[in-house]
C-alpha cells in the first residue's frame, strides 16, 4: 500500500538456502505467513512455516476447462501460474459471523463480532493477484463507509510478490495491463532465478516495511547479469501469454449490446455453476444468512460469498429479476469488463485466467469479448423494449 520511494531502490540477491530467514524475520515481526502449497492436485494458499512447504518441483498445465498439476524435475519453487485459490479467501473471507443475537425476555442483545486485526504476510503473490487486491481495495475500502472485515485483514497485510517467469495457457495479464511485471501495491518483490546450478531470488523492496525486512536478510548485491536474467524472465512470461483480450472501448461496446445474439450462444453452454465467481480474485458479492437455536434463544448472522449466478441473487418477492442464465452470464461479464469501470474506475478483470481454467464448460472470457465485438446488432443503442 505504501509508495515506492522516488529514488531507485537497489536489488539484492538471496540464496534459496537462506529463504528460511525471510520466514523467521516475518514471524519475528508477528506475521502469519501465507503462501502457495501443492495440495489435492492444485496450487492453493495456506499457512506456511518454512519455505520447504512451497511447491518445489511442480508445474501446471492449464487450458479452458482444464487444470493439471504435473511434476517437473527442477528445484524451482514458482514454476507454476495461479491456481484456483487466491488471497481473496484470506482478506475477504468466504464466511464470517457478523453478529450473535440473544433474546433475554422481551429484550434482545445484539453482540457485534468486531473483526480482529490480523497480520498476514502473503508470500508468492503474482502481479495479477496484487492487481486483484488493488481492485478489492477500491471496492471495499475506496468509498464511505468501508468494509470493517476486509479492513481489519487488509491493513495489517504484508504483500510479497514473486514475478512470473512463464505464463500459462489461460493467462492474459499483459492485455489487462496488470502483469506479468510487478509494478505496484507490493512491499517486496522477488524473482526466482535458476542459473548455472545456482538457485537465487532477486529481491527489491517497494515500501519502507519491505526495505526493513530485506535489510535483515543475508543478501549480496545483485549483479548486472542477475538483473538481466530478471528482465528476461518477465519478458519470457509476457511473450508466453496464452490469451489476449482487446480492452479498447470494451465498456461502451458491452453497454450498447445487451441484446447481442452471442449472449444466447453462451447461455446455452453456461451451467450457471458460479465457479468463475468463486475463483475470481475480484468478485466481492456476499449474502447474509441467519441461523437460530430456538431453545437457547440465540441467533447468528453470517456473511458468506455469493454469486451473481445464483438464481435467487436478484430475488424481490414475486420473482427473480435475472431468472435466465443468459441474463446472469451477461451480468457477470458486463460487470467485470464493463460497468466496473464506471463504478470503481478500473476493469474488474486482472487477466489471471482462473475463470477460463475452472469453467466446467470451458467458457473463455477472452473469446466471449471477441465474439461480442463481432456482428454487433443493436449498435444504435439499447433503449426501448422490443
Amino acid at each position, binding site marked *: 500500500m505504501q509508495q515506492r520511494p522516488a529514488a531507485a531502490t537497489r536489488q539484492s540477491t538471496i540464496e534459496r538456502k537462506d529463504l528460511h530467514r525471510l520466514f523467521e524475520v516475518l514471524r519475528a515481526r508477528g506475521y502469519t505467513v501465507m503462501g502457495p502449497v501443492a495440495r489435492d492436485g492444485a496450487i492453493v494458499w495456506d499457512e506456511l512455516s518454512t519455505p520447504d512447504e512451497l511447491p518445489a518441483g511442480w508445474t501446471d498445465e492449464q487450458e479452458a476447462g482444464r487444470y493439471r498439476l504435473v511434476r517437473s524435475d527442477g528445484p524451482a519453487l514458482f514454476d507454476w501460474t495461479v491456481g484456483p485459490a487466491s488471497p481473496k479467501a484470506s482478506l475477504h473471507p468466504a464466511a464470517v459471523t457478523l453478529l450473535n443475537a440473544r433474546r433475554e425476555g422481551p429484550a434482545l442483545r445484539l453482540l457485534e463480532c468486531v473483526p480482529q486485526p490480523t497480520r498476514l504476510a502473503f508470500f508468492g503473490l503474482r502481479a495479477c493477484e496484487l492487481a486483484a487486491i488493488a481492485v478489492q481495495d477500491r471496492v471495499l475500502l475506496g468509498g464511505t463507509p468501508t468494509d470493517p472485515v476486509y479492513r481489519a485483514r487488509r491493513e495489517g497485510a504484508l504483500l510479497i510478490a514473486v514475478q512470473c517467469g512463464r505464463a500459462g495457457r489461460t493467462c492474459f495479464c499483459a492485455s489487462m495491463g496488470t502483469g506479468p511485471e510487478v509494478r505496484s501495491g507490493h512491499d517486496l518483490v522477488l524473482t526466482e532465478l535458476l542459473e548455472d546450478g545456482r538457485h537465487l531470488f532477486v529481491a527489491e523492496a517497494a515500501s519502507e516495511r519491505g526495505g526493513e525486512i530485506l535489510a535483515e536478510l543475508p543478501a549480496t548485491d545483485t549483479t548486472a547479469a542477475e538483473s538481466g536474467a530478471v528482465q528476461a524472465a518477465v519478458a519470457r512470461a509476457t511473450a508466453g501469454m496464452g490469451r489476449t483480450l482487446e480492452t479498447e472501448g470494451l465498456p461502451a461496446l458491452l453497454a450498447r449490446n445487451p441484446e447481442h445474439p452471442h449472449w444466447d450462444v453462451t447461455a446455452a453452454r453456461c451451467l450457471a455453476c458460479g465457479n468463475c465467481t468463486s475463483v475470481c480474485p475480484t468478485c466481492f*458479492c456476499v449474502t447474509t444468512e441467519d441461523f437460530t437455536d430456538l431453545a437457547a434463544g440465540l441467533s447468528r448472522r453470517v456473511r458468506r460469498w455469493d454469486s451473481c449466478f445464483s438464481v435467487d441473487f436478484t430475488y424481490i418477492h414475486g420473482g427473480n429479476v435475472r431468472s435466465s442464465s443468459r441474463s446472469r452470464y451477461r451480468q457477470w461479464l458486463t460487470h467485470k469488463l464493463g460497468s466496473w469501470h464506471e463504478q470503481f474506475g478500473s476493469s474488474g478483470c486482472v487477466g489471471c485466467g482462473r475463470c477460463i481454467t475452472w469453467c466446467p464448460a470451458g467458457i473463455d472470457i477472452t473469446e466471449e469479448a471477441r465474439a461480442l465485438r463481432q456482428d454487433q446488432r443493436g449498435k444504435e*443503442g439499447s433503449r426501448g423494449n422490443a
Partner: protein
Amino acid sequence: MSERAAAAAPTPNVTRTDPMQPAPWRVVRTEPETHDAFKLTLAPVEAGPPFTFEAGQFNMLFAPGVGEAALSMSGCSGTVDRVVHTIRAAGRVTKTLRTLKRGDVLGLRGPFGKPWPVGLAEGRDVLLVAGGIGLAPLRPALCHMLEHRERFGRVNLLYGARSPQDILFAKEIETWRGRFDVSVEVTVDRAGADWHGRVGVVTTLVPRAQFDPANTVAFICGPEIMMHFTQRELERHGVPDESVWVSMERNMKCGVGFCGHCQFGPLFVCKDGPVFRYDRVAPLLGIREV
C-alpha cells in the same frame, strides 16, 4: 405525532462505525394499516447520536434468526426520536415484523440511500405519483411539502391502490383532501358496488392534476411497470424526463454497496439510489432482466 424531535436539514448519515451492525430499536407501537400492511413505530434502545433521515431513505430492519429487509421510512423526515415504517407483510422478514408486539426489540441499520430531491421541487408544481405500498416512501416527501407549503407550487398526490381495502393512510388521505392547498386523487384497480371512487390505473389520474409541465417535478414510486407507464403519461403531458424521479426496487443485503445484489447496470440501487432521475435509469429500464 411525536416523530419529530427538532427541525433540521442535515445530511444522510450512517451512525454506527460498522455499517453491517444493527442497533437495537424497540417497538413502541404497532398498528394494522390495511389487511396486509401495518405501521411500526420504533425508538432506539441505546443512547446515541440523533437519528436523522431524508424523505425516500430506507433502513435495514433485522428480525434475528430470520433476516433483514430494506424498508423505506414513512414518517416525517428530519431528526427524529421515533422511526415510522409502513410495511406490507409480503416476505418472511416482513411477516415476522408484523408479529412483533409493543416492547419487542429488533435490529435497525440506516438510514441508507439517496432521498427524494425535495429541494429541487421548490418553486415548482409537484406530482407525487404512488402505486400500492409505494405511497409509504412518498409520505415523508408530502409531509415535508405540507410543512413548508409556501415553498412549493401546486402539490398533487396521485395514488393508485389495488382495491379500496388496500388504500394506505386512508384517514390521512381524507385529511389531505380537506385541505385546499393539496390535490389528492385516488384510484383503485378493482372495486365492487360499494366503492364510489375512481376505478382505473393510476396513469388515468395524470390528466386530473393541475400542473405546468414545464415547471413541474414528479416523484414516482411503485412497481417498475407502473413507474414506466406513469412516466410515459407524463411525457405525453409535456413533462421532460429530467423532471421525473423514480424509486427503484432491487434485492438488497447490505445497503451500502458491498454485497453486489442490487446492481442495476452500473448503478448500485442501495447507494446510488433508490431514488434516481428518470433519464439516468431509462436506458436500463428498457433492457430485460438487467
